[in-house]
């Protein structure tokens, strides 16, 4: 599996993935409809901000924040951990090992090829956002756009790699899904998906700055509604890409050690 042949197969893999996304479009719409959390959280925070603005966020800021949360969630979602768990249990991972391609790469392309369909869903929400809160919230200088782009890619990178790490653990232990459940609950609290990170007390915020959660969803949202100065944004972006590097190494190591233990059940 040389790098060149892998790169050459990328367009085909993306095409296959896209066809799959189109075939399962009804299912995808159900998943989109199930993204109710930003709406649920907006109800709480708008009710709270009607009493008094909290931590520099007024009602409109919350609206922008949670519309962005919905968009970011659609763009950076990953489900590789569930998929890997399923394939290890069913033994179908063996099929992936037979291909002259790194299996982890196929998980990435499967994820990314859903992107065009997801953009179709995001477009009306983005329009609504521009109408409801005004374009002033969105990145407007070229630098801000670039930072936002890398922040969103990095956000997907961190989520996807965490998924891979947890997915690889299916090769060692039995109940990875419970593990994923625990991870999700923690990530909900600390990632900024439920509570804008800026609202946390200072001490907790410093801790969150060192954890990976914020860089999955919170940072892309904050960059999308431009809550940081350029210098601040760049330093956060650097931390995010550090996490991408750390998780990349961890996932590769876990995969190498784990795959030698893999037995295809019922193969």
């Amino acid at each position, binding site marked *: 599996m040389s790098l060149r042949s892998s790169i050459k197969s990328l367009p085909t893999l993306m095409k296959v993935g896209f066809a799959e996304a189109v075939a399962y479009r009804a299912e995808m719409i159900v998943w989109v409809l199930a993204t109710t959390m930003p*709406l649920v959280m907006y109800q709480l925070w708008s009710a709270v901000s009607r009493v008094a603005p909290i931590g520099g966020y007024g009602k409109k800021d919350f609206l922008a924040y949670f519309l962005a949360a919905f968009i970011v969630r659609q763009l950076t979602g990953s489900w590789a951990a569930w998929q890997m768990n399923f394939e290890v249990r069913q033994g179908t991972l063996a099929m992936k090992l037979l291909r002259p391609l790194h299996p982890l790469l196929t998980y990435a392309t499967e994820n990314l090829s859903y992107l065009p369909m997801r953009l179709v869903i995001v477009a009306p929400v983005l329009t609504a956002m521009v109408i409801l809160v005004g374009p002033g919230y969105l990145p407007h200088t070229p630098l801000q756009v670039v930072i936002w782009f890398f922040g969103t890619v990095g956000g997907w990178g961190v989520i996807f790699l965490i998924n891979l790490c947890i997915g690889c653990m299916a090769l060692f232990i039995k109940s990875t899904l419970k593990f994923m459940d625990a991870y999700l609950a923690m990530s909900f609290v600390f990632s900024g998906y*439920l509570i804008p990170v800026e609202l946390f007390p200072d001490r907790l915020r410093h801790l969150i700055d060192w954890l990976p959660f914020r860089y999955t969803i919170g940072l892309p949202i904050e960059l999308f509604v431009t809550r940081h100065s350029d210098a601040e944004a760049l330093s956060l972006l650097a931390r995010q890409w550090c996490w991408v590097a750390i998780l990349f190494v961890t996932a590769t190591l876990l995969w190498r050690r784990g795959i030698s233990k893999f037995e295809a059940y019922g193969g």
Partner: protein
Amino acid sequence: MRYLRLLAVQLRASALLAIQYRGDFLVDGPISLLWAGTSLAPLFVAYKNPATVVEGWSFGEALLVTGWFLLLTGVLEGAINPSLVSVVDHIRKGTLDFVLLKPADAQFLVSTSRFEPWRMTHVFTSILIFVYGFVTLHRMPSVPGIASALLLLLSSTLLLYSLWILTVSAAFYVVKVDNLTYLFNSLFDLARWPSSFFQGVLRFIFTAVVPLALMTTFPAEAMLNRLHASSLLFAIGGSLLFALLARLVWTRSIGHYTSASS
């Protein structure tokens, strides 16, 4: 009488199955606490100033709603979801035949076929939250308050169950409803906060059309002794009406069932 005996048999089967996987209990407990954290953390941040009152709800009072949300999540995941997920499976595979052939009511059989007792951990967590809420409020729940809250627990469970039956009935028409559970759970997330937090159209939808928001708000108000008797009657009457509707839709849609293998 016969149905009570049947229920006992089904419960025993589920209990035996659960005992096989007793290790789950140790894992589910901490996970339930973590998920409780996802409901509590936003409240802690929102009520940073303890004197804040949002739409008529103080911190301690809002805690009670969260407690009810968790309690009903436990009921949903432990008693309602597992059985009804298996119905969808039966419909897809065509094995519902075997259930229909049995000499008992099909809706009863499928609804009681599986329970997951370890989800009781949510119930324990919610009791902790109730205690914490009342300690924050510096008061004790009254006996009539608790009695009417328990009555509302029954009506909310009935309502959840009826909504589920209505959703599952859709499986007879469109077979692909795998992620329906997920959708249903995320809609139920809307019951996290007191119903007065909702505004405009959403408020109308989630209190009048699909009374999700009331399922947690009414029992919390009952515990605080501020629920009118008329609301109590409305909740009970409404849930009975929903149950009747669900029953009608179920019997109609089961007529559409065509075994998949023949």
